[in-house]
């Protein structure tokens, strides 16, 4: 019955493998969860989810699964009674045993339970909360575990357990949602190369000593490539107009990016790149630079990152004179192509939620111009962008 959870998790993008699954099964068998639903949840989370960004997804899948597992037709009510008794004996207190006797013994209890559950399902349409509504019934007093009945907790126990994953307190960590500076930094950091590259030009003193010592005292010199953070980035930011909603987020991206690269050059444009970009984005634009000069100045080893919503009139991209601000001799699409020819490694990060892209024709245009290298401003999107830029 855990397999369903396993496949559910995989289906919803929580990368869990058999290795983790087996560990989980073994931990359940060893009784780590102690037949307690809360602990069972924590155990499942600790063993099946290894990334805080996926915990929210995990919570949702788990909630759906546990609901199904607790529904009538599931093994819950049809559990092996012998087994139930065997663990039951360990967990019932004397008082509870007396209570059960009053109810007519364990078998009777289970029968009543089945009836009550049916009745409740009818009334509550199989919702996940029906358990808690019966605070005074013997069943409310006893929590349910997907693998059997757990007895000996107070009545609010079960409801509270359900809330642990229903709270979805890890929602902020999901990489599908928009991100703050900290997570952004994390993603941008992946741009950095940790490998040494370049010629073997640095004397490796430790290596030389080690080699020489291994050589029983005959000198043997070792070289190694210099370690450099070589990532150079050209950041082109869309400002003004339709972009204003996103300025905050872009600024976060900008502040996160600054410390990460050996070279980071930032220029601004409005809506689409034309013949000029500028450096200062105060009330007056300062540091106007022609795009041609940009192309001449920065080498091919730069990675270009556009940040913009790409939401405008399609004419602003396709037609000469289409710009809303000035008369542009050459169409924006031509400039885009020029830039992309110069710098092969490029990506466009779009703060507009991905599901809305198809409603704006100009986003489609830019998307095609970028050869589909447009990513949403989410952690997952940034991952895709950095992976693209690393190529």
């Amino acid at each position, binding site marked *: 019955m855990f397999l369903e959870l396993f496949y559910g998790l995989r289906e919803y993008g929580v990368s869990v493998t058999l290795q983790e699954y087996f560990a989980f099964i*073994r931990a359940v068998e060893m009784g780590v969860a102690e037949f307690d639903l809360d602990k069972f949840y924590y155990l499942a989370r600790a063993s099946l989810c290894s990334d805080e960004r996926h915990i929210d997804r995990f919570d949702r899948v788990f909630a759906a699964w546990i609901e199904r597992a607790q529904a009538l037709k599931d093994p819950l009510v049809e559990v092996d009674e012998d087994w139930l008794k065997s663990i039951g004996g360990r967990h019932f207190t004397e008082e509870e045993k007396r209570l059960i006797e009053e109810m007519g013994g364990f078998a009777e209890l289970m029968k009543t339970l089945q009836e009550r559950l049916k009745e409740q399902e009818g009334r509550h349409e199989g919702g996940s909360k029906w358990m808690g509504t019966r605070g005074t019934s013997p069943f409310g007093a006893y929590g349910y575990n997907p693998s059997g009945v757990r007895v000996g907790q107070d009545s609010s126990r079960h409801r509270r357990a359900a809330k642990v994953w229903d709270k979805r307190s890890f929602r902020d960590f999901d990489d599908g949602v928009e991100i703050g500076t900290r997570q952004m930094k994390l993603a941008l950091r992946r741009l950095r190369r940790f490998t040494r590259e370049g010629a073997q030009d640095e004397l490796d003193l430790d290596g030389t000593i080690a080699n020489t010592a291994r050589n029983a005292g005959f000198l043997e010199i070792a070289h190694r490539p210099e370690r450099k953070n070589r990532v150079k980035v050209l950041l082109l930011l869309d400002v003004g107009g339709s972009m204003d909603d996103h300025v905050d987020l872009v600024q976060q991206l900008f502040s996160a990016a600054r410390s990460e690269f050996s070279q980071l050059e930032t220029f601004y444009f409005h809506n689409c790149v034309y013949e000029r970009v500028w450096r200062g984005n105060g009330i007056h634009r300062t540091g106007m630079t022609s795009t041609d000069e940009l192309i001449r100045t920065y080498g091919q080893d730069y990675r270009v990152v556009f940040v913009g919503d790409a939401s405008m009139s399609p004419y602003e991209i396709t037609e000469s004179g289409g710009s809303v601000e000035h008369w542009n001799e050459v169409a924006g699409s031509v400039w885009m192509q020029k830039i992309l020819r110069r710098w092969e490694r490029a990506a466009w990060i779009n703060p507009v939620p991905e599901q809305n892209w198809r409603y704006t024709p100009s986003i489609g245009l830019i998307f095609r111009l970028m050869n589909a290298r447009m990513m949403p401003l989410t952690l997952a999107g940034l991952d895709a962008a950095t992976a693209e830029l690393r190529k």
Partner: protein
Amino acid sequence: MCAMQSPRFESTARYIAGEDLAVAVNAAVALERPLLVKGEPGTGKTVLAEEVAGSLGLPLLTWHVKSTTKAQQGLYEYDAVARLRDSQLGVDAVHDIGNYIVKGKMWEAFEKEGGCVLLIDEIDKADIEFPNDLLQELDRMEFFVYETKEVVRAVKRPVVIITSNNEKELPDAFLRRCFFHYIQFPDGATMASIVKAHYPDLHKEVLNEALGMFFGIRSVPNLKKRPSTSELLDWIRLLVIEHVKPGDLEEKAKASSVPPFVGSMVKNEQDMERLAQWVGSRGWQR
């Protein structure tokens, strides 16, 4: 269905562990798999290992990882320089290469007969390949020493606790071998019990006022480094030393000024400015 025999980890007098954390630790102990702990800096990741060691009654070995740390250093290092020197001086020890093998933390951990808790602290500080280089060693708890051609195997598998501050992504192959726990920032009630665990004699009013201010500071938007548990504890220690009386903090709050010793919580002049501005503009009222 065997019941667990080994001692279990729970909250201790000085360390308040959530039930989720306790389950994760016990699972890791029971299955002898490493436990990866992540969370905001200052939420007690490193202290956790000490507490686990304490409650299991095992010695604790700590391997602090730095940006230059290599996986090999945790296993052993071959001190070639010492050997070279000895060969020049004609020391007899030079003939046995084993004399120049320096044991690393993992080797030490493998040798402990009664088992131990091995803390690999801040694994994300090291090179991206570091965790990958330890896969085999953590999985099988054994490694091969090339110089002496011997296999070092764990006498008793140590409880491995690994912490990460999330500066780097850890490889999937590594994550698959670990139990994972993310320490969430404690809520008000938990925080109160954490403080009480450290300062049982603290006046209730002072505690409430201090916590109010602490969570107030944490809610200031755009702080570079929001204070966390360890900073709060430092601050409260200062309050205790200075005998801050109930009402003192409230007075400060009423005057819309920054609390005393705020430097132990806010450690950046820009943040300090932001805090002062925030307090000045809206006061401490929630």
